[in-house]
């Protein structure tokens, strides 16, 4: 599908202008003839899925990679074929990586003025100049941080300030910020936006790099979308919303429909009554029915993961009770939980944890080796293959042999292996904690398909996520947690996605 790009072309006074920048790694094209510009003091969003070329582009501009010959990088009107890290820094290009690249053991002062500690080994670092640098950088943001505190003691938002200050101390004129809001609360995002406005007023250009459109789009002027190494287009930020962006990023229309089926009349599989653990969560009651998907959302630190760990028997409840099919049970360990048919999948980067190099049979049987093993603890290869064969047949997994490496399967078939792996444990309850963190839109959709199929086969699913659309479009009901308590229950469709997000980030 083609997208009409209404790209405002590079003006001559652009701070940065790329023309025909490409990069190949071996036979793969990471970037293909990119034309792009950033104006002085502009706030720009650069979005694309993993593998779209965002990070290659940043690395070219930071001088880590040299672009293929033929393109030019024009900075301040001077054309370059490529940049070295040193040049990039000298020209005022600074990248703040998602991990912030700070030194938790060093002080705020040393982190900001680290450049003064480079160079000739036996010289003393200039303490006074370092202090002046740090004070000046913090002053530009009107931020107040204890200069002598170790950065490890600061909050994530404060660390971000330190990282920005380090960029400013190096005379940044163009600041790339990689996923800057990923672990901030709404309030902290607002503070970040205020900081960005301040930088903008000082003529510093900011490029937010993200795999989704975040709150930062509020103050961005333009959005550039990359897909498969090509620029899809540059758009005025006001014309772009989440759904449109998803289409531009994936090149496909994505169906958005809420589920919201009702289960109330039936006996719940899992029930939690007035459960609590000091300092983690309090007075939590919930019920989960066979085939139901219940979303649990809220900010990081709202007690979602702690609740999941308690349900999985990892930490005992201090108050309240857990009922399975109406009978109170005590879960003393995760073995108890597994024995009761509760499975827990922690946040996992790749498709719910397949070991792609191992065989299909290995992957399917890993969860049920106990049941397969004989009294001596040995697993007969025949039983294992037979069991895997059974699932391959039932789920119609297209493969020549169950002994083939899982990576030889197509994406859809790999997802069925995941399905088989969890169905083999015959779980009644599946707890999924942030199952799509760091996963592309395309692969996310695949994971949602697996989750829905599990639910259709009667598994009760607790879907924990801080991504509002994820719970909104997959869950039948959504529980909103804050400060360890359930503060609201929402049925998707009855409340809009926007209102739910407002309630969570308020």
């Amino acid at each position, binding site marked *: 599908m083609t997208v009409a790009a209404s790209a405002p072309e590079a003006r001559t006074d652009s701070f940065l202008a790329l023309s025909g920048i490409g990069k190949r790694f071996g036979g793969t094209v990471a970037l293909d003839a990119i034309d792009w510009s950033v104006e002085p003091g502009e706030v720009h969003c650069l979005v694309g899925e993993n593998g779209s070329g965002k990070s290659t582009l940043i690395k070219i501009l930071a001088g880590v990679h040299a672009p293929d010959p033929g393109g030019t990088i024009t900075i301040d009107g001077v054309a370059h074929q490529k940049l070295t*890290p*040193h040049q990039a*820094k000298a020209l005022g290009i600074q990248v703040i*990586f*998602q*991990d*912030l*690249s*700070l*030194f*938790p*053991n*060093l002080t705020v002062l*040393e982190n900001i003025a*680290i*450049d003064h*500690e*480079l*160079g*000739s*080994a*036996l*010289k*003393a*670092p200039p303490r006074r100049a370092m202090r002046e640098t740090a004070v000046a950088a913090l002053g530009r943001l009107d931020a107040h941080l204890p200069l*002598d505190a170790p950065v490890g*003691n600061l*909050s*994530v938002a404060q660390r971000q300030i330190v990282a920005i200050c*380090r960029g400013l101390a190096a005379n940044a004129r163009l600041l790339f910020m990689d*996923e800057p809001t*990923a*672990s901030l609360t709404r309030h902290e995002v607002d503070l970040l936006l205020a900081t960005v406005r301040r930088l903008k007023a000082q003529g510093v250009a900011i490029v937010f790099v993200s795999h989704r459109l975040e709150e930062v789009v509020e103050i961005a002027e333009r959005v550039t979308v990359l897909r498969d190494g090509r620029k899809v287009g540059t758009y005025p930020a006001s014309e772009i919303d989440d759904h449109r962006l998803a289409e531009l990023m994936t090149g496909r229309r994505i169906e958005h429909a809420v589920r919201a089926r009702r289960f109330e009349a039936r006996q719940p599989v899992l029930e939690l009554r007035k459960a609590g653990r000091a*300092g*983690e969560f309090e007075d939590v009651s919930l019920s989960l029915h066979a085939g139901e998907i219940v979303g649990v959302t809220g900010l*990081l*630190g709202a007690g979602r*993961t702690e609740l999941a760990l308690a349900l999985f028997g990892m930490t005992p409840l201090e108050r309240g009770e857990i009922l399975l099919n109406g009978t109170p049970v005590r879960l003393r360990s995760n073995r108890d939980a597994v024995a009761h048919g509760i499975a827990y999948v922690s*946040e996992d980067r790749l498709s719910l944890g397949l070991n792609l190099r191992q065989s299909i049979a290995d992957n399917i049987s890993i969860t049920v080796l106990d049941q397969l093993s004989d009294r001596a603890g040995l697993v007969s290869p025949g039983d294992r293959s037979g069991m895997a064969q059974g699932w391959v047949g039932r789920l119609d997994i297209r493969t020549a042999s169950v002994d083939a490496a899982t990576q030889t399967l197509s994406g859809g078939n790999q997802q069925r292996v995941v399905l088989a792996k969890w169905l083999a444990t015959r779980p009644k309850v599946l707890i999924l904690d*942030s199952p799509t*963190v*760091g996963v592309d839109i395309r692969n996310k959709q695949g994971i949602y398909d697996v989750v829905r199929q599990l639910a259709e086969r009667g598994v009760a699913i607790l879907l924990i996520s801080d991504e509002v659309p994820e719970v909104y479009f997959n869950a039948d009901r959504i529980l909103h947690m804050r400060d360890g308590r359930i503060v609201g229950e929402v049925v998707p469709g009855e409340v809009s996605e926007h209102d739910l997000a407002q309630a969570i980030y308020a």
Partner: protein
Amino acid sequence: MPRVLRALIGRTETALAAAIVVTAIVFSVTSPYFLTMPNLIDLVEAYSVTTILAAGVFVVLVSGGIDISFTATASAAQYLAAYLMVKQGVPAVPALAISALLGIALGSINALLTYHLRVVSIIVTIATASIYYALLIYFTNAEEIYNLPDWWSNGVSFFRYETANGDIVKITLPIVVMAVVVALTQYLMSRTRIGRQVYAVGGNPEAASRVGIDILRVQLFAYGYLGFLAAIAGFVQAGRVHQAVPTAMKGGELDVLAVAILGGASLVGGIGSVWGVLLGVLFLAMLQNGLNLLGVSSYFFGVVIGLAILVSISMTGYVDKHARGRRVKRAG
């Protein structure tokens, strides 16, 4: 100054200093000899080799690595120095300089292997320790060298006086060397750029390389400096026992690592101070000496070292866990 006080609370060094004061009080009550000048000076001298080695290990620990091969390095440098002086008649200064260079070279090999093979340093240095020792014994046939020069084996006293009851207190070469090493290490680590870079690399190696710190140079400094101090410790040790024995220091690695860790140097890098290491040595020395004076079997001492490490490590773990509390548990 309350700010200084606040900075001190919760640090391993502070807890250790408190433990030392308590230990000193307990032992001085139970044994009148404990807190006398001759006993304390003996103690310092007896632990001079451990302290010198621990200062070097501390630097490597801060850089985020670990080294098991330093006693092998110390033995090799010690033997080379003795060989050059006793068997080849080389004057002391060039002999010591050449041997110190050997120490630096052996340390640098560890740095180069760790950097280029991208293998964790514990594995690299277990391997090199084995190689260094094997080569040393192969070339020396495990023969001791006696009759070291007089200044080396009988020591130089910089200061001596007699106490009222006739005991002689001497400030000897090992004590002076140790003091210089501690001061030098403290200076390098806190007052020079390379020292701060060691802390930076230990705190976040990825970030260090992104801001333009040359990781290899930092590792060469850390392991090379440990090699250098190992050589010095080897010289001091030979002087104390009046001979150079290829295997004399073998097995001493764990005690040295123990005091560095006890003194607050973190195994994951980036944390620690020379003062902490010094306190760690002092604490273990006092414990051992006090238990000796009380007539406790020296075999029991291993139990005490082990317990001290366990308590120290679990305290650090406990403090960390509660300081971080409910802060973000996953990195996204």
